[in-house]
Each structure stands twice: as structure tokens, then as C-alpha cells.
């Protein structure tokens, strides 16, 4: 029996690792497919696996979803209900900047390697003519590390997925302030399947869309922090791809 590989965008919160294993167990039972869950530590190793066509299913961030649909023949099936990806640009609470217009070249920026958040963050700095050429960009592994660098005055600015910022402790957040946040509403993480699953994709889509209707499905969704899945149409996916392309 063929084994398909499922993976998750490495930007998921660490406390959801168990949740993805629970989801995989549930999905295998519900679809009858043999699925191996591979969680990559970083975007680079996941990209390598994608380029080598090892990945068949992925819960992807908007940037990678765009690439997978355009270049790898993936199709977006479903997205978590009511969740959108927004980014925030954050600084220390006592920093002398109160808006993007106050920012000047030469500042130190901490950013994770989440490509969608980076794109949105840079879009919000553009009105001040800041970019990777005139900022000192430091790549960090996680949002708590980005927050630590700000608090210790080792970075002046940081990009966060809004949800990632909100998950920081209130003690940490009290030492920081949000300069600007994106309000786009059309970018989202989505569950995609690749060409090897073309024949099963409608079955998988239906399975996901009905997941919240059974107690076991509800439990698995809760372990991911999702209420339910909702359908993604090709037009919605195309729209998201266009937004990502425009921001590149």
C-alpha cells in the first residue's frame, strides 16, 4: 500500500506537535490512506523535501501555498474556519517610535524565516522606505526569541505572525508595543494535496469538511486549535496567490 507524506508549515506553535499526530491518526482512519507525518524543523529542509516531490499533503502558510499551487500542481482543499494570517511590526514599549513614519534606516530587525510574515512585515515598512538593504536583518528561530531580542535591546523591530505575538505571555507583551498590524483578511493557511493524491482529493476534502460532525473529529480539531475546516475554492486560492505575487 502506498504511503503518502504529510507535513506542516514549520511556523506552527510547538504546543501543537501532538495535535498534528492526533490529526494524522484521525485522517488515516477516516480516509483509509496510509499517511506518514513528517515535521520539518525549518523551512529549508521542508522546501528540499518539496522540491524532491516527497510531500503529498501539507498544511501550508500562504506564501508556500502559492508556490505549491503554481509550481508543483498542488490544490488547496480546506482552511481552518475563521482564521486569517496577519502580521504585526513590534518594538520595545519604551522605544522612541510610535508609527512606521518614525522609523529610519539602520535599525535592527528580528524576523523568523516565515516567508508570509516577512513579506507582510516588509510591506508595512515600505512607506518609510525601509527594506532588507537598509535594515540589519537578523533571522531568529521563534517568536519568543524575537521578543527577547527586543526586550534586551538587541533588536529595534521584529515581525510576528499576529497569532504568534498574541500567544506571548502578557508579561512579555507588556514590555513591547505594536507599531502597525496588517488588516488584509484574505491570506490564510490551507491544507493542500499534491498530484499523487489527485484521485483522492475530493474524498479528502469531504472528509475534512465533515470532520467537526463527530466527537472524535472534534477532539482532533481541538488539539489543533481549530473549530472546523471550511472549503477553499480554486478562485479563493488564486486570489491569495495574486496577493502574494503583488507583495513580492
Amino acid at each position, binding site marked *: 500500500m502506498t504511503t503518502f507524506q504529510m507535513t506542516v508549515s514549520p511556523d506552527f506553535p510547538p504546543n501543537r506537535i501532538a495535535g498534528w499526530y492526533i490529526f494524522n491518526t484521525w485522517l488515516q482512519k477516516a480516509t483509509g490512506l496510509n499517511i506518514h507525518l513528517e515535521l520539518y524543523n525549518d523551512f529549508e529542509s521542508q522546501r528540499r523535501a518539496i522540491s524532491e516531490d516527497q510531500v503529498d499533503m501539507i498544511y501550508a502558510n500562504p506564501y508556500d501555498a502559492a508556490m505549491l499551487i503554481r509550481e508543483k500542481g498542488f490544490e488547496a482543499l480546506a482552511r481552518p474556519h475563521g482564521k486569517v494570517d496577519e502580521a504585526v511590526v513590534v518594538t520595545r514599549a519604551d522605544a522612541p517610535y510610535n*508609527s*512606521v*513614519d518614525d522609523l529610519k534606516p539602520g535599525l535592527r530587525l528580528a524576523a523568523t524565516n516565515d516567508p508570509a510574515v516577512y513579506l507582510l512585515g516588509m*510591506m*508595512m515598512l*515600505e*512607506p*518609510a*522606505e525601509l527594506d532588507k538593504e537598509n535594515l540589519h536583518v537578523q533571522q531568529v528561530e521563534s517568536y519568543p526569541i524575537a521578543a527577547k531580542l527586543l526586550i534586551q535591546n538587541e533588536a529595534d523591530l521584529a515581525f510576528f505572525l499576529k497569532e504568534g505575538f498574541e500567544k506571548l505571555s502578557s508579561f512579555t507583551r507588556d514590555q513591547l508595543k505594536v507599531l*502597525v*498590524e*496588517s*488588516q*488584509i*483578511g*484574505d491570506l490564510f493557511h490551507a491544507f493542500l494535496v499534491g498530484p499523487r493524491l489527485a484521485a483522492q482529493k475530493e474524498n479528502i476534502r469531504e472528509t475534512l469538511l465533515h470532520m467537526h460532525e463527530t466527537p472524535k473529529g472534534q477532539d482532533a480539531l481541538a488539539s489543533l486549535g481549530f473549530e472546523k475546516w471550511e472549503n477553499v475554492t480554486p478562485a479563493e486560492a*488564486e*486570489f491569495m496567490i*495574486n*496577493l502574494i*505575487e*503583488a*507583495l513580492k
Partner: protein
Amino acid sequence: MEDMRPEDIVGEYREYTLTYYDGTSRKVLVTDIETPYPDGKLIVSTTDTKGIITHANQAFVDMSGYTREELIGQPHYILRHPDMPKAAFRDMWETIQAGKTWRGYVKNLRKDGGYYLVYATVMPNFDKEGNIVGYTSVRRKPSRRKMEEALKRYAEMLAQEQEEGA
């Protein structure tokens, strides 16, 4: 398209008649009131191949001053400001009709006669066979300095167009 109506205008206005590429004309009423572009937002719209608006997001509705119903089905040039030279839009159409992405600074006209300034990215949408089926336009907050440079350039282009009777 209908002329702009004095009762929709906020503040003192000037009157212009714009003639669009398709030969239609419209009276537009213009004030000097700027609506500042909100931080973090994107204005997104899609059009068909003729430039008729098929989708408008909430930011587009809010910034343009029109309702969504008033925008859908109208030509995108409903936003054309008389300070914009025709050559800028000619360049845009030539670029996107050739299947490429156009980027530029644009002054847009609101329903209330005021204006807002954007950095726009306009790109073609393709079907599976590679035919252009429409266009997506994404506007974001521009750098003030680059916008001012563009407006200066547009004023020169406009003066030249008027001189040539374009």
C-alpha cells in the same frame, strides 16, 4: 458612466470633464482633501479583460467612498483623477495586456471628490491555457517621498499632454 453629483461632494470643488480611452466622457468634481492611506491595509480589486470591476474588497469600498454595489460592474476608471496623465494608464494597459505586471504610483479620485494616494501593482490573471481572463490590482500605502516625486512627474506629463491636445 454618470457624472459626479455636487450633492456627493465634501468641500469646495473644481469641475473637469474626463474623456476615457473608450471614448466616453464624464464630469468629475474634485477637491483638495486627501484621505490618508491606512497603515497595514491592502486595497484589492479584480476586473475583467475590459477593466470592468468584478471584485472589490472592504478596503477598496472604504477608501473609494463608493458602496460595493456602486463599484461592481463599473469601469475601473471610475477612480481616475484628473491629475493623472493618460500616458501613465496607457503604459499600464500595454504592460498588463502583454502579460506582465505593472507597478506604479497613482492618485485616485473618491466619490466625495477627495483623493487618496497608492502604490499599485496590477497583474494579469490567466486561465489554464495561458489566456488572460482578467486583472488583479493590489494597492498599498506608498512612500511619501516617492509619491511626491511621481506626482511631480505626472504634473509635467499632464502639462505636455494638454499642450499637445492629447
